[in-house]
């Protein structure tokens, strides 16, 4: 990296820090020196870390250090390759299964939240990671799942399992309706339209008092039921078991998450998945090669919506409560952060990011307020320094480095 570039980056970093200073210093009209310098220090520290990372990257030491780091995580390369992959996946699975037996209620609750976000992240990964469409209103489909279960259960008494396919279908259809006019457009139009759409769904839920009880939300949905056969005196009968306890719910979302992982993994490797990647890379070339781009983009959108809907239905069932404020724009941003920071298109990356990004602020309560601040900055820094994410998908990693080579030679 050129020295002038470095100098410029440094000057602007300090510049940005100083600029933020007056904004931070005036929570009221009086000046809070301690608070101002505290927050300013955090800004400057973050920028300094960014600078160091950039310098290291310039010298090549960065590549070495991150290569070591990524080989530690990535199952496909490096030292871990010696241990067969299925062993350490099964150890991980075992740990996740044992978790509710050793953890307390609070930790299980956090675990459930993490798994919900893993499902959401993987669903969004289909849209953003595979098909390359930026969806900023993703949480709307989560809301659709939650509200469709709530309303169907409260008004018609339908069970969780009956509502699941209905919610999924509803989410997918809604995804198609909103996606159809916009998918033909530029990617950034889609981003804004989906952002607006997410807000509209929230407004509808908030304002349609008769149906959704407005900001008060809906209360008293049934927990999911499990049916199992039993051979009693009257022959084969179906027993009903209500999933009331947290560990029960944990196992339910765990199974849903596993199914999602398998589904997304299969999709990634399927013909449709490859077509999505082709669209992401070069839509015109894909279309000329006979890929029905519009339909496949619509399919990606609908699929992503369907997974969000599953997550939403579970969320409503778990809490027995929903209100529109669960589905604000920031939630979409959190899910997007999980996808981006984990590595766009990389399934293990998204699982890790989902767990880390949700669990860490939850466990360290003091960090909670700074969470989105850090996520936002991390997203921008990530795009500049390491666009392939923490654990890059192998295909994706190569693409990004190819791009860099091209732009360097430009």
């Amino acid at each position, binding site marked *: 990296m050129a020295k002038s570039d470095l100098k*410029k*980056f440094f000057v*602007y*970093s300090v*510049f*940005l820090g100083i*600029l*933020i200073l*007056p*904004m*931070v*210093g*005036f*929570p009221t*009209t009086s000046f809070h020196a301690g608070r101002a310098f505290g*927050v300013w220090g955090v800004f400057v520290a973050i920028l300094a870390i960014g600078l160091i990372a950039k310098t290291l990257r310039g010298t090549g030491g960065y590549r070495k250090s991150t290569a070591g780091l990524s080989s530690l995580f990535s199952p496909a390369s490096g030292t871990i390759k010696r241990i067969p992959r299925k062993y350490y996946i099964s150890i991980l699975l075992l740990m996740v299964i044992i978790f509710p037996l050793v953890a307390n209620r609070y930790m299980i609750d956090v675990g459930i939240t993490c798994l919900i976000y893993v499902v959401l992240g993987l669903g969004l990964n289909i849209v953003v990671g595979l098909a*390359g469409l*930026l969806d*900023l209103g993703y949480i709307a489909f989560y809301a659709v799942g939650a509200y469709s279960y709530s309303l169907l259960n409260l008004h018609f008494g339908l069970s969780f399992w009956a509502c699941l396919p209905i919610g999924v279908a509803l989410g997918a259809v809604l995804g198609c309706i909103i996606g159809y*006019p*916009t998918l*033909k*457009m*530029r*990617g*950034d*139009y889609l*981003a*804004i*339209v989906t952002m*607006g*759409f997410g*807000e*509209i769904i929230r*407004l*509808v839920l908030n*304002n349609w008092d008769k149906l959704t009880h407005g900001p008060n939300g809906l209360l008293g949905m049934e927990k999911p039921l499990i049916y199992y056969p039993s051979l009693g005196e009257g022959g084969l009968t179906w027993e009903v078991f209500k999933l009331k306890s947290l560990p029960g719910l944990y196992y339910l979302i765990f199974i849903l998450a596993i199914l999602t992982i398998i589904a997304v993994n299969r999709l990634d490797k399927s013909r449709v998945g490859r077509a999505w990647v082709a669209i992401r890379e070069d*839509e*015109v070339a894909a279309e000329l090669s006979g890929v029905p781009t519009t339909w496949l983009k619509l399919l990606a959108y609908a699929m992503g919506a369907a997974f969000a809907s599953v997550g939403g239905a579970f969320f409503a069932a778990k809490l027995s409560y929903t209100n529109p404020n669960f589905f604000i*724009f920031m939630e979409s*941003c959190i899910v*997007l952060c999980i996808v*981006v920071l984990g590595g*766009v298109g990389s399934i293990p990356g998204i699982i890790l990011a989902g767990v880390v990004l949700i669990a860490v602020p939850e466990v360290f309560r003091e960090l909670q307020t*700074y969470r*989105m*601040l850090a*996520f*936002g*900055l*991390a*997203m*921008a*820094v*990530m*795009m*500049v320094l390491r*666009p392939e994410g923490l654990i890059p998908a192998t295909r994706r990693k190569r693409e990004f480095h190819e*791009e860099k080579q091209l*732009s360097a030679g430009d």
Partner: protein
Amino acid sequence: MDTQSFIIQQLINAIFLGSIYALIALGYTMVYGIIELINFAHGELFTSGAFIGIIVLAILQKFGFVETHFILTMILAFGLAMAYVAVLGVAIEQVAYKPLRNASRLAAILSALGMSIFLSNGMMLSQGVSDRAYPQLLSIRGVSIMDARITYGQIFIIILSVALMAALYVFVKGSRLGKAMRATAQNKTMARMCGIDIDKTIRVTFIIGPALGAAAGVMVGLYYGSVRFDMGFIYMIKAFAAAILGGIGSIPGAMLGGLIIGGVEVLWSAFLPSEWKDVTTFIVLILVLYLKPSGILGEDVAETRV
């Protein structure tokens, strides 16, 4: 109030609201015209302009400056807010957008979004989550035109925004830098070959766009009397709809789009339940994308794909 004065009243409201939307939309459309990126942080720049305005006004009010020198106060509030936000805009461009100019489109959009989240949460942490009251400076007295009331505050805001837009128009059409901006928007490679400093042009764009947004922020604060850290979000969607409606990349288009979006919103609030008024913008946006994606005054760019 008879029908005629009702219509005039709604027209005044529409022009007032529309000129604010137009000012914000100009920032989007200019940045998009030059680097083909939606500046997601623009809504937050608008909000931070409003906050700088509140800080300046509060300090001046404390020293009793406002009562004695009203015009100077306004100049200081608008000027400082615009200057600060312009510098912030350039800093964001340098830190988050410039390194990604040759990267994939998705990476650039995500970086912009990251900056937006960062700024919005920074403001939430520093300014609090509740509404902050703006000093009541604009007179609520006004004049009546055929029974329709227009306050001096509204007149002041409309005149100021029209003046800003006129200045921008003259700058872009007349000055050398404006010509460079238009050339860069048309064809970046060709402009570079002709000796135009692309980096400088982009910096100028990131000075003007956010400064106009900041002016709109101070106006909104002065008129509605309160600001909130997340108010940029809904204004952003509306201004974006205005920019698309007018044809993204087109400066007169953004002004026209702002007026139309303002008009539609005012009409909706006048006759239909106003809690749904934010939905109208979205409907307009979808309709435009369905029927004429290039907008009213735009070139046919929407067909180009990512």
